[in-house]
C-alpha cells in the first residue's frame, strides 16, 4: 500500500503491513506462513506491560533540535518528555551543539475529559510558541484525548493560520497498536508532512536514520572518502536539515524497523533511493550495505578500496576470536530488525542461535518485500526457533529456563537483568552501533567473550534472589497464553 502524505493519520503496522506480536515456531515456518498469507498473529489472554508507541514516536521527534512537542494528555503521558530531555541534552553536549527542544504536557484533568479542552490546547500551543519560538511544533494526542474525540487536526489547521513554523498533528494514542514501532512511522509521517520540502537541487548528502548518532565521527569519516556527507536523523538534526531530506543522494538506516517508513516515503515521493540491504552489523552486513551505497552514489571503486584496506586491518583479529566463540549457544530478544540482524552476526562469528524472540514481526515492509535480514537468514543460515512477543518477560524467562543458553542478548531496557537473575550471562546490545562495521564486530566479539568468562555478577545475584514466576509457569509451554 502506498504511503499517503496527504492525510495526517496513518494506519498501524498491524493494518498496513500485517505485522504481528504473537507467534511461536521457527524461522522457516514463519517465513512460509508469511509468504502464503496464512500468518495470523495470536492475541494473549495474559500479557505483561510493554511499551507505548507514543513514547517511541515522540522521543524521536523531541530529539530534533529546537522544536516543541506538545503532548495533549494527562501528566503520565508527557513523562516521556522528562526522560527524553536528559537524553537530548546529553547527546547534544557530546556533539558540542545546543538543543533547545521543549516537551510540554497539557496535564489533562477530569473536567477536560468531560467538557473537552481543545481551546486550552490551542492556548498552550500559542504560549509555547511565544516562549520558545520553536522551529517546528508537534501536537500529539494520547489515549485520553483520543477516546473523548479531541480534534487535534482542526486545532492544528487553525493554528497554522497564526503561527509561521511547521506544525503537525501527531496521532499517537497508545491503544492503537501493540507494536510500538508504529510510533516510529508516526514520527516519520509528521516530519514528512510538515517539514520535508520538495527538492530544488541535489545535494551530496545521505540521509542516515538512526537513534543517537554515537558513530557519527566514524561514519562521517568513511563517507568523506566517497565524497558524501551523512545527515543523521533525528537526534540533533535541525529543521533546516530535515526540510532538505528530499534532495539527498540516498537514505540509509541502522535499523530497518526504524528507517523503513521514511526511506520508502522519500523514495516514493521524491525518488531518493532507499538502500534496502541487510544492516551494517557484522562483516557481511557492513560490506553488503557499503557496496549498495557505493552503487547508488556511483562510488564502487572507492568503496572496494576502503573494504580492502579495512579488511586487512580487522579480519585477522576477528578470525582469531571466532575460534574462541565457536559453539556458544545464544538466545536473542530484540526488536524484529535487530533479532534477525544480530542472529546473522552470531552465526557469522561461529555462535549458535537457539531461540530468537522478536518483539514484533513485520512480514513485509512498505514496499511489500520481506525484510532483508529475514531474507538473508532464509537463504544462508540454519533454521532456528523463533517467537514473536512484545517483550513478554514471562515467555523470555521460560525460554531461557528450557533452553539454558550460554548467553542472552537483548537490546531493550529491563530484559537482560532478568536473564542474569536466572543465572544466565547476558549482554545488553544497547547502542545501535555496538556491532557496526569491522571495529564494532571486533569489539562485540571481545565483549561476548568477556561476558561469558566472568560470570561473577550473575552468579552472585542469582544465588541470592527469587524469581518472580511460579514453578507452575516454568512447567508450561512457552506459547501457553497465545490464543489460536
Amino acid at each position, binding site marked *: 500500500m502506498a504511503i499517503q502524505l496527504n492525510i495526517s493519520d496513518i494506519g498501524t503496522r498491524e493494518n498496513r503491513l500485517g505485522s504481528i506480536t504473537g507467534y511461536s515456531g521457527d524461522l522457516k515456518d514463519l517465513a512460509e506462513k508469511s509468504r502464503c498469507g496464512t500468518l495470523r498473529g495470536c492475541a494473549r*489472554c*495474559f*500479557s*505483561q*506491560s*510493554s*511499551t*507505548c*508507541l*507514543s*513514547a517511541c514516536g515522540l522521543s524521536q521527534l523531541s530529539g530534533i533540535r529546537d522544536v516543541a512537542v506538545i503532548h495533549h*494528555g*494527562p*501528566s*503520565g*503521558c*508527557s*513523562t*516521556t*518528555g522528562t*526522560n527524553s530531555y*536528559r537524553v537530548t*541534552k546529553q547527546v547534544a553536549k557530546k556533539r558540542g551543539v545546543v538543543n533547545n527542544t*521543549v516537551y*510540554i*504536557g*497539557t*496535564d*489533562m*484533568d477530569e473536567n*477536560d*475529559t468531560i467538557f473537552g479542552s481543545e481551546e*486550552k490546547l490551542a492556548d*498552550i500551543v500559542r*504560549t*509555547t510558541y511565544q*516562549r520558545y519560538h520553536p522551529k517546528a511544533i508537534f501536537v500529539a494526542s494520547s*489515549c*485520553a484525548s483520543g*477516546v*473523548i474525540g479531541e480534534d487535534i487536526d482542526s486545532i492544528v489547521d487553525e493554528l497554522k493560520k497564526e503561527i509561521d513554523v511547521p506544525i503537525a498533528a501527531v496521532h499517537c494514542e*497508545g*491503544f*492503537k497498536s*501493540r507494536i510500538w514501532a508504529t510510533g516510529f512511522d508516526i514520527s516519520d509521517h509528521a516530519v514528512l508532512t510538515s517539514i520535508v520540502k520538495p527538492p530544488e537541487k541535489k545535494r551530496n548528502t545521505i540521509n542516515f536514520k538512526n537513534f543517537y548518532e554515537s558513530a557519527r565521527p566514524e561514519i562521517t569519516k568513511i563517507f568523506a572518502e566517497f565524497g558524501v556527507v551523512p545527515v543523521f536523523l533525528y537526534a540533533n538534526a535541525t529543521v533546516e536539515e530535515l526540510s532538505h531530506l528530499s534532495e539527498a543522494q540516498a537514505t540509509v538506516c541502522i535499523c530497518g524497523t526504524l528507517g523503513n517508513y521514511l526511506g520508502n516515503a522519500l523514495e516514493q515521493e521524491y525518488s531518493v533511493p532507499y538502500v534496502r540491504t541487510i544492516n551494517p552489523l557484522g562483516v557481511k552486513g557492513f560490506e553488503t550495505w557499503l557496496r549498495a551505497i557505493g552503487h547508488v552514489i556511483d562510488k564502487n571503486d572507492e568503496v572496494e578500496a576502503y573494504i580492502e584496506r579495512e579488511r586487512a586491518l580487522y579480519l585477522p583479529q576477528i578470525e582469531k576470536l571466532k575460534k574462541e566463540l565457536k559453539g556458544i549457544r545464544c538466545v536473542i530478544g530484540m526488536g524484529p530488525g535487530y533479532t534477525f540482524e544480530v542472529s546473522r552476526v552470531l552465526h557469522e562469528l561461529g555462535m549458535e542461535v537457539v531461540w530468537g524472540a522478536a518483539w514484533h514481526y513485520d512480514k513485509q515492509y512498505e514496499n511489500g518485500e520481506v525484510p532483508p535480514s529475514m531474507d538473508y537468514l532464509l537463504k544462508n543460515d540454519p533454521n532456528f526457533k523463533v517467537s514473536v512477543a*512484545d*517483550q513478554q*518477560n*514471562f515467555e523470555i524467562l521460560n525460554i531461557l529456563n528450557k533452553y539454558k543458553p550460554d548467553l542472552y542478548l537483548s537490546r531493550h531496557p*529491563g530484559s537482560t*537483568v*532478568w536473564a542474569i537473575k536466572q543465572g544466565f550471562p547476558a549482554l545488553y546490545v544497547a547502542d545501535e552501533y555496538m556491532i557496526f562495521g569491522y571495529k564494532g564486530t571486533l569489539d562485540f566479539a571481545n565483549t561476548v567473550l568477556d561476558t561469558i568468562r566472568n560470570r561473577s555478577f550473575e552468579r552472585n545475584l542469582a544465588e541470592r534472589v*527469587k*524469581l*518472580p*514466576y*511460579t514453578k*507452575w*509457569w516454568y512447567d508450561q509451554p512457552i506459547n501457553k*497464553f497465545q490464543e489460536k
Partner: protein
Amino acid sequence: MTKILDKQRYKCAMSAMSTVQAIERAIPILHSGPGCAQKLSNSAGSSGFFSPNIFPCTSINERDVVFGGEEKLQSTIENALKVIDADLYVVLTGCTPEIVGDDVEEVVGGFKNSKKPVIFTSTPGFKGNNYKGHEWVIDAIVDQLLEPVAENEKEKGLVNIWADVPYQDEFWLGNLRALEALLSAIGLTPNTIFGHRRGLENIHRIPKAEFNLLVSPWVGLENVKHMQEKFGTPYLHWPTLPIGAFETSKFLRAVVEFAHLDTKKVEAFIKEREAYYYYYIERFADIFLETRAMSKRFSVVADAQYALGITKFLVNDLGRFPAKQYIVDDTPKEYQAAVKGYFKDLNYGIEAEAIFGVDGWEIHEDIKKTDYNGYPLILGSYWEKELVQQTNAHFVNVSWPVNERLVMNGYYVGYDGGLRLLEDIYSVVRTRFN
C-alpha cells in the same frame, strides 16, 4: 491562565504502581494501555523482585475501547495469580477503561476468595497526579485488606510511619529507614510497609499501632485521617522532613510528647547525637563560612516536602537566608494555606515566601529576576540544571526528576542526613574558587 506542564515535576495517578512496587511481594495489575508502566517507571532502582515489565497488563487496544475490556481484565487477573509469585495483587486502572466505563470493581470483586488478595484502586491519569495516586493506593489497602482490631490487640509503642512517595522521592527508602532508626532510638517500635523485609506482615500490623506518624507537609494526610476513622488510631502530623540537628531534635521532642514518653531518655539521645553532629560541623565550619563563591541566599524548587525540609535546615542549622521557595507538586488548594504557613516558622522570625506552581518556565523566569546577592544556591530537579547555567548558581538535584546522580540507600533525614546534604552541596560549591 491555562495550566501548562512546562518542565514536568510529577507523573499521573497511575504511577501509584510505584507505591505498590515498593511493597515487597506486592504487584500491580494494570488495566491500561501497553506502555503506561514503562513510561511511569523510574529509571533507577526498578529491577527489584518485580519490575514494570513484569507487571501484568491488559494492554488495551482499539477493540477494547469499543467493546470494553472487562473480559480481558478477568483473564489477566486469573492468569496473573497462576504465573506471578506474589502475595498481593493490586489492580490499577488507566485512563481508557475509566472513560469507556469498564466495571473494574465488579471484575475484581469476583476474586474475593482467591488464594492471594486482589484489591483495586481507580487511578486514571486525568484524576490526579502520583502524589494523589499514592494516597489512593494506601486508602485501598486500608479499606480492602485491613479490619479494625480490638483495643487489647493494640501494641503500645507501635507507630506506623508514613512519609513521602516511593520512587517520586529518590531518597524515599533511605529517609524511611532513617525515620525508623530515630523512633527506635527513643524507645518506640516503628512500622513501615515499604522496602526490604517490611511488606504484608507490616501491613497487617497497621491497625494495631498506638498512633500514625505522618512526616509530610500534606501527602498522606487523608490516609491518616481515614485510619483514625476506621481503626481509631490517632495521628501526629509532622509537616517538616527533619534534616540536620535543629529540626531532628525538635521532631524527636514532639514525638516523645505525643507518645507520652519519658523525656529523659530522649534528651540523653539528643545530647549524644548533637555532640556527634557538631563534632563534624565544627571541623568543617571553616568551609561553610569561608567560601568565596557562595552567597547567603538559596531557593528550593521541589515538592512541598523538600522545599520545606531543606528551607528549615539551611535557615535553622546553617544560618542561611531564604529567597523564594517554589513548590511544584500541584499541592491541592485546601492545603496551600497551611503549607505556606510552615515556611513562616523559622528562627529569628524569618519568613520564607512559598510559591505554588507547576509552570517551570515561570519559575525559571522568576529566579532569573531574583537578586541572590552573589552566587545563588538552587536545590531542585534536573530541569534546574539548565537554569543554573544561565544564573551561575550552585545546583544540587534533590527532587524529581533526578538524573546524573545515583541514589541507592542515600537519605537526608536526621543528623547524618543533614551532614549528607552538606556533603552534596559543598561538593558542588567547591568546584569553584571564586
